[in-house]
């Protein structure tokens, strides 16, 4: 939404915003302010409830997140200055967000609209394995994901190698890997008959040069696609990230702001994560000109977000954003378990259920804590998206969703620390046809039937 005027007004604050030493920013500015607003607004985590229905709590989390963002701002590690905005500027940016965007191209274009709490409209479904993958499996994985019927957008796995050589960030290998990444994606989309499908690309680019190298409406990342630009944990940015903001604004593609507040880190506990998620959403909108926010709060020790200390902030922040804004925001699942385990299916279902009912769109699923190469498949994401569609269309309430979430948590929460890492893609899928093995499909089907018995009304 950033106009050129706003873009440069805000970029300029990297140069003349308030100065702060980097070592002081988190312990002396961010965390004390966060603690202050958590106390001021009386935000308290109730461990027994996954999805609270207290709308006053949601509104207080919104106010706390607003105050946190306004008073802390975003720290630029290159200039050692904080980019801060006024209340009026935040209000203006929120007013200017249209609440919906057409993304993708031609017949594959999709309208992405803001959702409300307990909204009957299905969530916007971005499939993403989030993991890295071997060069020889990248194309097959792209095809496998793009075959998914509920896919509204796709973020492909990250290439680890290009032409047999390890990709090193900010090097020529990264540019080559990015080119290979987008060519694989474009070919896969064409071959499955979805040439205009919405991409979030390219994840292989860690550095701005790789990202900029593949902006091309003929063969590369199009203006109908999106980039995600990260915010460094917590509330920091750098010129290499702001370079992407300027490039994307001038190129004209969609921008998502990628954030991962850490439970147990500078945010503290569940209350701090909830407030920080709201604050990050305002940061994405105002400083990155993001049309959507892509959030993956996670547990410091496990790197996952399917246990109750993360599901609660997801549920509360979703309600805060749903009630008080027209923003678009995806909830990115990180499971403990890996592919072809019953646990990953339970975790994905629970994450999708909690997120959908509390107004989020979905981004599933970083399996096996997003740590291992090739360790994610479309099938766990499929189940998550099917749960999202089902609970939206049946009009599931937060109370009903809470009851099911507690049943699902009882199945896996005790195994979070020692979750099974499952199998790699090529062990769960037939690589040439990009289809799941019978064993894998049967496991998915069993869990889906179990969910149906719990009260999830799947359309098919």
């Amino acid at each position, binding site marked *: 939404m950033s106009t050129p005027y706003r873009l440069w007004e805000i970029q300029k604050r990297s140069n003349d915003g308030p100065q702060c030493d980097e070592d002081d920013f988190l*312990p002396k500015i961010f965390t004390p302010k966060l603690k202050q607003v958590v106390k001021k607004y009386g935000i308290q985590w109730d461990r027994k409830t996954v999805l609270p229905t207290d709308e006053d709590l949601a509104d207080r989390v919104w106010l706390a997140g607003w105050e946190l963002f306004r008073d802390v701002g975003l720290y630029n590690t290159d200039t050692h200055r904080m980019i801060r905005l006024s209340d009026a500027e935040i209000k203006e940016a929120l007013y200017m967000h249209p609440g919906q965007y057409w993304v993708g191209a031609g017949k594959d274009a999709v309208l992405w609209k803001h959702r409300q709490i307990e909204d009957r409209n299905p969530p916007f479904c971005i499939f993403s394995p989030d993991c890295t993958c071997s060069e020889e499996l990248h194309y097959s994985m792209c095809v496998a994901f793009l075959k998914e019927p509920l896919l509204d957008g796709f973020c492909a796995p*990250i290439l680890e190698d290009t032409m047999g050589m390890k990709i090193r960030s900010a090097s020529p290998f*990264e540019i080559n890997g990015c080119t290979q990444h987008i060519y694989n994606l474009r070919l896969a989309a064409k071959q499955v008959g979805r040439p205009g499908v919405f991409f979030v690309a390219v994840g292989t680019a*860690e550095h701005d040069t790789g990202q900029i190298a593949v902006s091309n409406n003929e063969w590369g990342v199009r203006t109908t696609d999106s980039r995600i630009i990260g915010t460094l944990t917590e509330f920091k940015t*750098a010129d290499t990230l702001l370079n992407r903001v300027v490039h994307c604004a001038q190129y004209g593609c969609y921008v998502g702001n990628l954030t991962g507040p*850490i439970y147990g*880190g500078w945010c*503290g506990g569940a209350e701090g994560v909830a407030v920080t998620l709201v604050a990050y959403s305002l940061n994405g909108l105002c400083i990155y000109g993001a049309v959507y926010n892509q959030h993956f709060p996670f547990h*410091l020790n496990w790197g996952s977000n399917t246990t109750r200390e993360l599901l609660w902030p997801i549920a509360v922040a979703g309600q805060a954003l749903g009630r008080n804004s027209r923003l678009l925001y995806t909830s990115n699942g990180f499971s403990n378990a890996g592919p072809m385990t019953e646990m990953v299916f339970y975790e994905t279902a629970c994450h999708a259920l909690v997120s959908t009912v509390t107004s989020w769109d979905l981004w599933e699923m970083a399996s096996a804590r997003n740590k291992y190469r090739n360790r994610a498949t479309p099938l766990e994401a499929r189940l998550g998206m099917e749960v999202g569609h089902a609970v939206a269309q049946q009009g599931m309430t937060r109370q009903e969703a809470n009851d099911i979430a507690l049943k699902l948590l009882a199945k896996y929460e005790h195994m979070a620390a020692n979750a099974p890492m499952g199998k790699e893609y090529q062990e769960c899928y037939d690589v040439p046809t990009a289809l799941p093995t019978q064993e894998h499909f049967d496991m998915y089907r069993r869990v889906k039937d179990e969910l149906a018995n719990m009260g999830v009304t799947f359309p098919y």
Partner: protein
Amino acid sequence: MSLERLCQALEEGAQEEAERIAKDLLNQKIDSKATVDRLVATMQKVGDRFARLEIFLPEMMMSGQTMASVMQILGPKISQSAGAAAALMKGKVVLGTVKGDLHEIGKNIVKLMLEATGFEVKDLGYDVDPLAFIKEAEALKADFIAASALMTTTMPHQKEIIDLLKDKGLRGKYKVVIGGAPTTQEWAEKIGADLYCYDAGSAPRLMAQLIAKPS
């Protein structure tokens, strides 16, 4: 009694109170070795509570800073005891996040845990050139080079450090420790690192074991 109170202040991260008690202790006859052992054990306890997330990073950080400040006050007294000094010098570490990588929360937690349990740490920050790790290790006469990477595309820089050490004929001189979200034991073995730390909490124990092991 004062030591009890000091340990409690340390656990609570009450820096001013801890400094006051430490200054009082300077004027008393204390068993330096026992004092250091108690302080390190207290920090280990704080670290264990953090590992279980009974406390969070800001609280751990406050305890770590309190410990640093207490040691600065007690340092001259403690250094007179060889046993106490040894307990405080488990090894020298050059630590950083590799080139091209701007993530440092994990690295910072490792730093806290190491310093709190008796390692001397030179923190090079993030986006650190492989050669800078080696130059700093040479200057510090370090025991360890510890390199963190949070992205798969920055992991190769961990290997570069080892390759450069080999090329310079310095490989045997330093224990190379790696960590970071996408790294694994398998990766550590593949690139020839001496140690893989799967999380920040495990780093002090694993590194102490490694340095104690006869080479």
